[in-house]
Structure formats: C-alpha cells, structure tokens
C-alpha cells in the first residue's frame, strides 16, 4: 500500500497533471492565468517541420546509444569475464564513467572534440588530417554527443552483462566444449539465448535513460548547432518550458514522448511474452 501511494503521488499524479497542462498556453514566468487552448499545442508541434527533425534526431541518438552501449558493453563483459591479470582494475575503469555526472563528462569531452585544441584534432593533425568541426557541423555534433553518451553509459551495460555472464549455466558451456562447438556458434547458440532476459531488461532501461539525456547535450552543444541539430525530445521539453517559458507546449512535447515510449515498451513486452 505505501508503495502504491508513493507511485500515485510521485509518478501518476504528475503525469496526469502534465497531460492536463498540455492543453493550456501557459507562460511559466507569468502571473497571468493559463489559457485553455485545446489541442493547439499538439497541432502546432505536429505542423512544425523542426519537430520532425527533432524526432529523427531522437531516434538516431537513442538507437545508436542503445545498440552501441549494449554491444560494446557485452563485448567488454565477455572479455573481462576471463581470468586476466588486472581485470578488476579494468572493470572499475570501465564502470567509473557511469557514476560521473554527465555535465562533468560533457565539459571534459570538449577537450577531446574541440576542433581548435582538442585531442582528436591533435591526433589527426599528426597524420596531416583536419579535424571535423564537431561544433558547427550538424552530423558531427550529433555524433559527438552520442559517442560521449555511449562512453558514459558503457559501464552500466558492462556491469549488468558481466553479472549475467557469471550466472550462466556451466553445464551448457561444458556440453558445447565437449561437442567442440566453434566459438562464434557457441556464443550465438548457447551464451546469447541465456542472456535474453538481461538483454531485454537493458534494452528498456537504456532506452529510457537515453531518451532522458539532457546534461551532456546541454553542456556540449546546448541543442545546437544551427539551433536544433542535437536537440532531442527531452531537450525540447526543457527548451520550450524553461528557455521559451512555454510550459504548456513543453508539456505537450513531454506527453507525446510519454506516449511514444509507452507504445515501444508495450511492443517490447509483448514480444518478450511471445518468446516466453
């Protein structure tokens, strides 16, 4: 019962309030009352081409972040699941970025990507190449924030996969070895199927986390260049609400985002149920 109360107070009431707000035009800094505008915020959002550009960027960012951190996290977990010298130190090293604040990582990675004095331009300069302009080119800017986020999030997927690998059935492994099953085949036929629940769990949690990334984008690009080139839906919510003071419009974007995630999650759960 206490959990239900907490959920109602801190999750569902705000969610419903947010949906209610999305039907209003409300300047968040204004003392004037909000005015009811019906579906106007949704119509405005849907008819603005920039919204669809932001949706596309959100999809690219999320898909790359989810697959990138899961694939690399799994690869690292497989590597460090063996008895290697110094593996505990390396494990800690990989996990560390996950607990560092995104804002701090955003600042630090400017010294990696800055086309004027960053590490990448220095390395490329040594082989006679120019650095891409990560701050003014929309594609490179999106690559920059996505890569930074994947690096930060890697520790999470790595640790979860590592824990899952250590809980795998040893008898299946041994059977595969006795049968002299090739390594790749063993991975795809024996290891990966056993990791399916973990993969499913990670796909949902990483997806949710990726959709909420704000700090890295805010620090590194503030949603730009060219105004909105690295703006994702959650950044748009913030931008509209607290920068443009359009709380009602921001709430509409948040509601759209909620519905999109709800649909994705339901599909994922159905697929999982079917497989089970």
């Amino acid at each position, binding site marked *: 019962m206490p959990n239900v109360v907490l*959920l109602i107070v*801190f*999750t*569902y*009431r*705000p*969610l419903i*309030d*947010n949906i209610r707000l999305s039907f*209003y*035009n*409300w*300047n*968040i*800094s*204004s*003392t*004037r*009352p*909000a005015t009811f505008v019906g579906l106007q915020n949704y119509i405005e959002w849907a008819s603005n081409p920039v919204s669809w550009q932001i949706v596309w960027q959100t999809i690219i960012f999320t898909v790359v972040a989810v697959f990138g951190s899961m694939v690399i996290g799994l690869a690292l977990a497989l590597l460090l699941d063996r008895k290697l010298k110094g593996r505990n130190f390396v494990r800690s090293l990989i996990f560390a970025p996950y607990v560092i604040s995104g804002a701090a990582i955003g600042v630090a990675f400017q010294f990696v990507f*800055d086309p*004027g*004095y960053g590490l990448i331009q220095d390395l490329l300069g040594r082989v006679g190449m120019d650095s891409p302009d990560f*701050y*003014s080119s929309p594609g490179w800017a999106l690559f920059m924030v996505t890569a930074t986020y994947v690096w930060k999030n890697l520790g999470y997927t790595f640790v979860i996969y590592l824990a*899952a690998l250590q809980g795998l059935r040893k008898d299946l492994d041994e059977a595969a070895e006795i049968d002299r099953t090739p390594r790749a085949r063993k991975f795809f036929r024996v290891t990966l199927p056993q990791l399916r*629940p973990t993969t*499913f769990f990670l796909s*949902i*949690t990483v997806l*949710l986390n990726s*959709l*909420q990334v704000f700090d890295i984008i805010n620090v590194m*690009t*503030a*949603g*730009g*260049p*060219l*105004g909105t080139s690295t703006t994702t839906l*959650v950044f748009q*919510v*913030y931008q509209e609400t*607290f*920068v*443009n*003071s359009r*709380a009602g419009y*921001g*709430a509409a974007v*948040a*509601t759209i*985002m*909620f519905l999109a*995630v*709800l649909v994705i*999650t339901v599909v*994922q*759960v159905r697929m999982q*149920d079917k497989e089970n």
Partner: protein
Amino acid sequence: MIISRRSVFTLAGLGIATAGLSACAGTGGSASQQQEGSGTLQFWSNHPGSSRDLEQKLIDAWNEANPDTPAELIDGGADYEELGQKFNAALAGGDLPDVIVASDVTWFNFAFTEATTPLDDLWAENDIDTSTYVETLLEDYNFEGKHYGVPYSRSTPLMYWYTADLEKACLPTDRGPQTWQEFAEEWGPKLKEATGKPALVVADGSNYLDWYFQGAFWTFGGAYSDEWDLKFTDPKTVEAGKFLQKMVQDGLVSVVKDSANDFGIGNASGLLESTGSLGGLKESAQGDFITTYLPGPKPGTTTGGAGLAIPAGISDERKAVAVKFIDFMTNTENTITFTQETGYMPVRSDAADVPEQAKYMEENPNAETAIRQLEENTKPQDFARVFVNGGGQAIGGALDKIVAGQDVEEVFSALQDELQATIDRDIKPNL
C-alpha cells in the same frame, strides 16, 4: 533475471514522468503569494566576468555592515540563460530568491509577466538615490514608466587585436577598421595573408553571435526589428547576413564556440567579444593587444550584459532589504571594484570622478574603450532580440545556419515567421 510486465510499466512511467513538468505547481498566479524568506538574503548570480570571488568579497562586506540582514551568494547557473531558466523553475513552484542577475534578454520577459517587481516605489520608500546611475544604462530597464532592474555587469562588444599581428600586416595599431567594408577589403585579407590565421574570431549562435553582430546589421541599414516590426526580410538585413556568410567563407572570420579562448591561444588576430572578457584576456592572451570600437557608421554596436532585479513574489520586508542590497552592490565604490576586476563598465556616472578610477582608466586604455564607445557608438538593442521570448537564441540559431552556408533569404524568412508567431501569441495580446 525476471521482469514482470508491471515493473516494466512502472519503469516507463517513472522514466517519462521525470521528463514532464511534474514538479510545477499551478498555472500562473505565482507572484500573488508573498513568500517569506529564511532571514538570509539569497542572491542568485552566474558570476558574470568570472566574478564569483569578487561577488563573495562584496557580500562579505555587506554582511559585516548589515549583520541583521545577511546575504548569501547562490550559483544561479553558468550563464545568464541558465540563471533565467532556474528562476523560471522557481517561479513555477520553488523558493524564490531575493535578488537575481537578469540579462538583457531575460529582464523584459520577467517584467512583462510581472515576475519581477518595479523598483521605483521601493527606491522612494527606502531613500535610495538613483541619480548617479549612468542614465542610458538605467533606462534600459524602463518598461511603461517603471524600472524593473538596475545596471550591474553592463558591457558592450569590443574588438580585440593582437598588436604584433597588426604590425605584421602593416595596419594601424591605434584603431580598428572604421567600417565593415574596410575590414572586408583591407584588414581581413592583410591579416590573413600576414599571419595565416583568420583575421577575426567571434562566438557562435549559442554564445551570443546575435548580440555581437547586431550592430553590423545596423551599419548596413538593416536591423532585426524596428520596435515590434520584424525586419529580417528587409533587403539590407539580408545584405548584412550575406556579408557575414562571405566573410566566413573567405576565411576572414571564424565562428567558434569559445571565441575568447580561441583568441587567447592565438588562433586569430582579432576577437569580437564583450568588454566583460577583458579581465580574463589580460591573463590569457598570447601577447599585447588593443581594444577598439566596432566598425561604423555609428552606431556600430549596442550595450548588453545584465542588471539586478527583485522577484515580485517575495514579501515587502524582503523587497526592502533586497533593494538596499542592490544599491550596495552597485554603489560607486563597488562598481569601481567590479569594473577594474572584470572589465565591465562602471554603472555609476560619478565613478569617473573618483581619482582611483580616473588613474586606472589612464593606465588601462583598453578598459576605457568600452566607456567611450557607450557614449559614441551604441544604441539600444532591437526588440526582436531582447523583448521576444527566445528571440536571441532563435536569431543566434539562424545566424549559425547562415554561417554554415544556408540560403540567407530562406533562413531569415523562416526566422521572421517564427518570431512573428511568438509576438502575436505572447506579446501583442498583453501589450
């Protein structure tokens, strides 16, 4: 690992609820409640011009002189925008501060929405003398006959030039280019040829390119707006936009995220930047430099920076203390200290009469440039940038697109439509 459907939905709900405006209480009416404070005045600042230590020093002095009404310095964000956003969040349901730094692009929205309080009555009730504020700077905060702020960290854009680079390019070392045409035809090419670097570096649209380059639009006969009448599709505004684009394409102007740093490490011969960066550049520049006016014809630039404002939603007692605190922070003695450490302009006209300040100006001609430019080469900013909510950022984004090579007419036309919609929706019905 077993995951139930319920837990998945809970996760989803938790995740997305945080993205919403869940914490925001009510819709409007926040200023009608008069918040009592904790007894300690809260001053929200973004420490303009890296002034954190200096602000703390001034606050310590206030606390020593006013032990019954102590003040506390609170980090309000990394820049003016972040501070404005934090204040917006506080207006929607949090604890309000007593004094905030309100920038050229945020003060009007707060005044217009009655989030900040007019100061005139408070001045009268608390015997505050405002006659020595620099009039043009104080009048920047006048809306419908009432003042909603006082000048604090006020600035103008300046041009900074490495003397050695100017000498190398056989250019004068006692002035900057007098027109943008002179820059394009003579200064830019000569500097680029002599040094192999861009002649001028300026910050991108996320970092106030819209402010730095605003005066250039005026020198071409264009503007962002004439009061509420947007001018982005005016042929002269378009011409100025094309000029900016060509300067970048020709490699004469470089547009980067952190222009002061780029200039500081010697990546360009010149810098278009706020006078508030003067203090930092004295430490970081690679060699001697001069500061000059922005190119004309006059007025070739504008003023900017920030003032101090008081939220409307705090109690009268808190307002009375806050207005005295603001007076203290900007008094003649403190504005001199602030000016000398940061490079911002003194906001009291009688500062110039203080021998210490007069001597400082004589010894630091680079600091004097901004003060002379204020009188000779500035005019107030266009409404489209400072009075339209999100206007500065939208113009900055559009200028970034122009710098990236997009069609100037198309970019400005879309910008005009966007800002016109904001004016029609948020401003005109409430004027």
